[in-house]
């Protein structure tokens, strides 16, 4: 059935979306290559972020593609370490050792910036 609704009131919708986001469950997948320095650093860093900002509502999966490169193909991984935010949508992709904490937080919609008020950037 078609729902005839007026386009949402932007502010209210935004706030609702923000509130929803505040409770959303995150599913993250980190692709690493064995126990290299970068890989380990990436794990440590992302875990730190999760523990600090997503305490109790995250699921971090670590995938080692050095043993099974085929796993990389499904997600179109081109470099490791790579973090994929699977949930909540949209899909996001981060590459590196995850030491750019601010950028990652932003990318995970865990930082409020001016631009976010308007539309998902």
């Amino acid at each position, binding site marked *: 059935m078609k729902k005839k609704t007026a386009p949402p009131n932007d502010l209210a919708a935004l706030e609702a979306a923000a509130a929803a986001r505040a409770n959303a469950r995150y599913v993250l997948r980190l692709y690493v290559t064995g126990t290299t320095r970068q890989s380990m650093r990436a794990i440590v860093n992302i875990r730190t972020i999760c523990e600090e900002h997503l305490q109790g509502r995250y699921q971090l999966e670590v995938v080692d593609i050095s043993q099974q490169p085929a796993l990389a*193909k499904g997600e179109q991984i081109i470099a*490791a370490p790579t973090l994929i935010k699977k949930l909540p949508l949209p899909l996001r*992709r981060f*590459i*590196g*050792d995850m030491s750019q904490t601010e950028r990652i937080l932003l990318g995970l919609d865990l930082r409020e910036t001016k631009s976010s008020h308007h539309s998902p950037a």
Partner: protein
Amino acid sequence: MTSRTSPEAQLRAENAELRARLAEAEDTLRAIRSNEVDALVIDTANGPQIFSLQGLDAESNRMRGELLAQVGDSVIAVDGEERITFFNAAAQRQYGLRSDDVLGRKLPGIYTHHWPAPEAETAKCKALRDHGEWHGESVQRLHDGREVHVESSITILRRTDGADAGTLIVTRDISARKQQEDTLRESQQFARSVLENLPAFVGVMTVDGTLTDANRASMEAAGIPASEVIGKKFWDCYWWSYSPEIQAQLRDACKRAAGGERVRYDVPVRMAGDTRTWIDFQISPLRDTKGRITHLIPSAMDLALRHEAEGKLRESEERFRVALSAVSDIIWTYNAAGEMDGEQPLWSAFTGQRPEDFRGFGWSKAVHPEDAQPTIEAWNLAVAEKRMFEFEHRVRRHDGEWRLCTVRAKPVRYPSGEIREWVGVHTDITASRHSATELQRVNSLLDTLLHTAPIGFCFLDRDLRFVRINERLAQMNGVPVEAHLGRHASEIVPALFESLRDLTGRILTTGEAELNHEFSGETPATPGVTRFWNESWYPVRDGAGEVVGFGAVVEEITERKRAESDLRVAKARAEKANRAKTDFLSSMSHELRTPLNSILGFAQLLESGASPPTPSQKRSIDQILRAGWHLLDLITEILDLAVIESGNVMLSLDPVSLTDVMLDCRAMIEPQAQQRGIGIQFPRFETLHFVKADRTRLKQVLVNLVFNAIKYNKPEGTVAVEVTLKSPGLVRICVRDTGAGLAPAQQAQLFQPFNRLGQERGAEEGTGIGLVVTKRLVELMGGTVGVDSTVGVGSTFWIELSQTAAPQFAAADLAYIAQVQPQPPDGVPQHTLLYIEDNSANQALIEQLIARRPDMRLLCAADGEAGIAFARDYQPALILMDITLPGISGVEVLQILQKDPSTAHIPIVALSANAMPSDIAKGMDAGFLNYITKPIKVDQFMDALDQALKFAQTSSRRAVPQKASI
């Protein structure tokens, strides 16, 4: 989602998408440039491949990673905020967590520290602060609650610029080691407390003799504190320092112990208060696991204690040895391998085997060859299975005899269960087996005996039910043995039951057996027929004496009873017949004698009548008379024979004096002999023979024989009567004549009645019955009669009779005789006077007279024979004899006494009513010492006695020459 999207929105969305992608690409490039990426994934024809960007670092990284993975201790790196940045494989194992799961987490999430004391934590912090590192032990409590003891090294990581780069923690789980240390400490404490509480003395020395430890007892006993001895040389300590010699001895002992020797000796030590106590002292070297001597252990026990223990041991051993010797079984031991070794005194004593014989398996040689192999097999089995051994076999005893024995052996185990040795026992069961076999044999024999006995046996319980019964009695009852058992007697033999019940009732009352009761009645064996049994019933008691039943012996006497009654009938008939015969005989006798009386009487009247008969009449009368007397003799003898034949003759067999009988016989026969001119010779009467015979009948027999000898003799012939002792106890009286003799054919017919062997036509008269009667009579007297004869020479008729002893006076009579005399006063000798007198009045008179003489004792004999016997037995000092005696006369008694050496010395005084001078002379001639006449004058009598006594005491008599016997 809205159904329509404005193109603007769409564009904006696509824009956003592109921007995002772009941002990503930029991000990627940036990451690569800033060396945050270590690998690229490139899709190749062969699939996606990974290209590492690490370069040289990659290899060293990998190696580092591998090294760290190999390390056994857990290695954890944390950053400044205690986040785990590194977590090696060992750490993963130790904490049970995956590296991926812990990286980035904070360390307290894995474990927390527990410090034994707050100071320990402070010390750790201080160390880290001051030195940047710390090493120590702590307790970690893990996330799952476990507590582990760990040994950790903590190192602060610094960057080249000096700033903290985090902390490296290397941890080793020492829980196991801690456990061991605890266990060790516990056992050490235990050992220590044991040592401390020992009453003995124990210490520890180093190899060079320095005392490092001693137990409390050693120090308390000496009354010294530990500080005075610990750390000093042992021999310098209080216990020893009282004597240099003792110290030197100890020093030497320590040296030897240090060389590996265990030294032991008795020595006095100094105790508190400077007293001495002897101890059993020893030093043992203590070795480590490699065998090196690390310490010396001195220890000591109060000698008194040791002596006590030794004493107890000796006591126990002694007890054991005595017990062993008291046991009649053979006890032995085997070693663990099942071989006999060492000393085995009981085995040796029994079998005679010495240790070299029985050693090992040598004992099997003492076992019977047939039993040896099975024994060994069974033994090996028992040893292998380590269980008790039981067997039965024959063993040779030292004397060579095979004895049947049971043998049992059991293993003796160490506390650990290992077998130390075997202990076994042999029991000689030969005797008991033998007696068991014997018993069985006897039992079966008894059973057989019982069942095959021709007499009935049975056993009833108290209720009179059959418990046991043998074949014979079952047959008598007519019911099979098995059918009796358990059944009541009233069911089996109802006809006899009442008597049985009464009888058993009596047994119960009196407790005594009832023997030889006659039962009569019917049994099922022969219904309708009354039978008889002799039954003896007796009570059967149990161990307590209670009657549990009745036993019986039953004998069938039906036949016997029948025989008895037949016999009784026959006896009655015979007696009747006998009585009839006797009556007949006596009436016959009477009938015959009566007319004969007339014949003889009137004939005699005629002969001696007023008018004498004429010679021819006299001749006729003589004939009548002779015939008549002959008929009388005949009748008498026939009747006599008849009486004898009918067995009615009454004989009284007494000791009869042959002398007596012969004298009577002689008196009767002499006139006949003289008339016929035949000389008769009778034996001399030196010895008295007594025979068992009837006096009257013996006389009759003798007269018959002698008369025959006289009648059937030759003119001027002789008859000799002789008495000989045929054998001890047998007297033969021979009557020898000088007649015509008898041929053997005639001898055979001798003892037949009415057979006069041709003498019927002879001059002599005879009945022909005499010898028959003689024979019968002699046989009735238990003797024999016979004849020896030679034709032309003569015949000897003999009879043999049993000799018997002289008649003894009854003891009562003797006692009476003895009683008559009073006891003489002491000191006065008493003389025995023998008075031979048959007249009781005379006897009484003399008794009275002698009663007045305390020096004399009177003995009376009623006739000559008794007198002679008394004279011999009692050896009187003096004999007084009546000349007129029954049987042999006083003179003859005198002669006999004088001839007998045992009585010849005794003076004999005659006492007689024959007072004629010729009588007196005759008596004196005969040999009497004195001749006293009746009636007696008392004083004369007494004087005569005195005289005779004096004579007896002073002189010895001359032997009187023998006179020829008449």
